[in-house]
């Protein structure tokens, strides 16, 4: 079971490395959304700091939506997904490996890029660790929940808008606690509560989402 997990994880990381141009696009998307925002609101520092939690988390959500569409699509198109389903190992384990690889290749980059962006928005340096922690705990949950949606819409040629309708309502708790932690940190309030709740969501996601993803993949394969 573990060997299949590692094999799929290694394969997807290798693929991400070979196609690293795509990762740069995701990062650029994230940076661009954040960078264009002040042009719309005006550069008043107080406004930017106030809206920065919403801004950062909404751009993470949008970036996740765009990148998740390709999570299973190539495997579905070239027949590899059939082999996943036919594997004697549980499909949920394979799904978890794929989501982990996806997160390491895209979510983690957002976490690492976030300090630069929030400092651009004028957020105090002291808040940066909490912001990174909230993204670190929140983005994997986005990947797990989003993978269910993308697995359900796998057989559709253009699923982008539908996917957003399916998964954005499910993203509400992560958005609330993630942006809540960030706001608390900016205002100098304790953010531990929100971070604990994010961690709890992540645990719930890891323990249940892979089974839902596996069931969704099987439905899409039929």
């Amino acid at each position, binding site marked *: 079971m573990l060997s299949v997990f590692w094999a799929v994880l290694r394969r997807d990381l290798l693929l991400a490395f070979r196609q690293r141009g795509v990762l740069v696009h995701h990062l650029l998307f994230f940076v661009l959304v954040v960078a264009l925002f002040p042009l719309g609101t005006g550069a008043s520092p107080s406004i930017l700091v106030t809206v920065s939690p919403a801004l950062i988390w909404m751009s993470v959500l949008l970036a996740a939506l765009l990148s998740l569409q390709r999570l299973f699509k190539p495997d579905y198109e070239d027949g590899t997904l059939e082999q996943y389903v036919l594997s004697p190992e549980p499909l949920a384990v394979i799904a978890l490996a794929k989501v982990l690889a996806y997160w390491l290749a895209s979510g983690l980059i957002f976490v690492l890029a976030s300090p630069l962006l929030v400092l651009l928005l004028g957020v105090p340096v002291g808040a940066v660790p909490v912001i990174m922690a909230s993204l670190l705990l929140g983005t994997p949950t986005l990947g797990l929940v989003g993978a269910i949606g993308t697995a359900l819409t796998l*057989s559709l040629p253009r699923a982008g808008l*539908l996917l957003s309708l399916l998964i954005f309502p*499910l993203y*509400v*708790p992560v958005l609330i606690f993630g942006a*809540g932690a960030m706001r608390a940190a900016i205002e100098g309030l304790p953010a531990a509560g929100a971070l604990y709740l994010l961690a709890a969501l992540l645990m719930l996601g890891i323990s249940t989402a892979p089974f839902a993803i596996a069931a969704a993949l099987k*439905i899409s394969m039929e």
Partner: protein
Amino acid sequence: MVETHYASTQFTIYLQRNGVGVLAKSAFMLWLHRFGSLPYFYRVSRPIALALAVPGVLLAAYGVYGGLVNAPVDYQQGDAFRILYIHVPSAWLSLFGYTSMAIAGAVALVWRLKLAEIFVVAAAPVGASFTFLALVTGSIWGKPMWGTWWVWDARLTSELILLFLYLGVIALHNAIESPRSAARACALLSVVGVINVPIIHFSVEWWNTLHQGPTVTRFGRPAMEMAMLWPLLCAALGFTLMFGWLTLWNMRVQLLRRERRSRWVKKVFSDA
């Protein structure tokens, strides 16, 4: 590792594997199996729908009449509280409908029961329209009470997200071409959604206490008078029965759509 592929596609296999030790469970399965017979369902669903419709409409009408006419004026809200006689039953139905969809969805996924799949698909538009009704009446009630059409109050926000969950199920069903995959996908989505409903509600409440300074409702919640409460309960029960009635009719349509090429459907319509 061994995986059972065709788990319980056939009732006989289920019995063979589990033997008589689970007779009670089997009796339940037998009932499910009989009720799961599609021609049987199509035949009996019509009188059942009628049996739900008559008391449902009567109860709802009695409740609404009681609320509009008999209930005394609320000393704080004036006559505006009479909106609640449709708002509260609608809000109750929005939750009841989604939960019932999720239960049917779980049954559909585990036992591959076609009727349960159809229920999920059939209940979604009914539930969505009552959720919409709850939101609209809530905001109409809110205008005179709060002075604004919309507040980001925890309950209203949760209700809005619940509407999105419903719309997601409907959109997914419309998007997938194969009726079988579409119904199964909706079943899974409703199960995933129902796990999230309490989490969403909790998170929205958490957010609300954080950002909403003064409480939004100007009024406390004094114990309701019986003359006010009684019609409300009747209306809620009546709406629930009506939900069953409307969903049954939707199920009949979906069933015909899916089975239109089968022999039994042709037989039903050639005899008639």
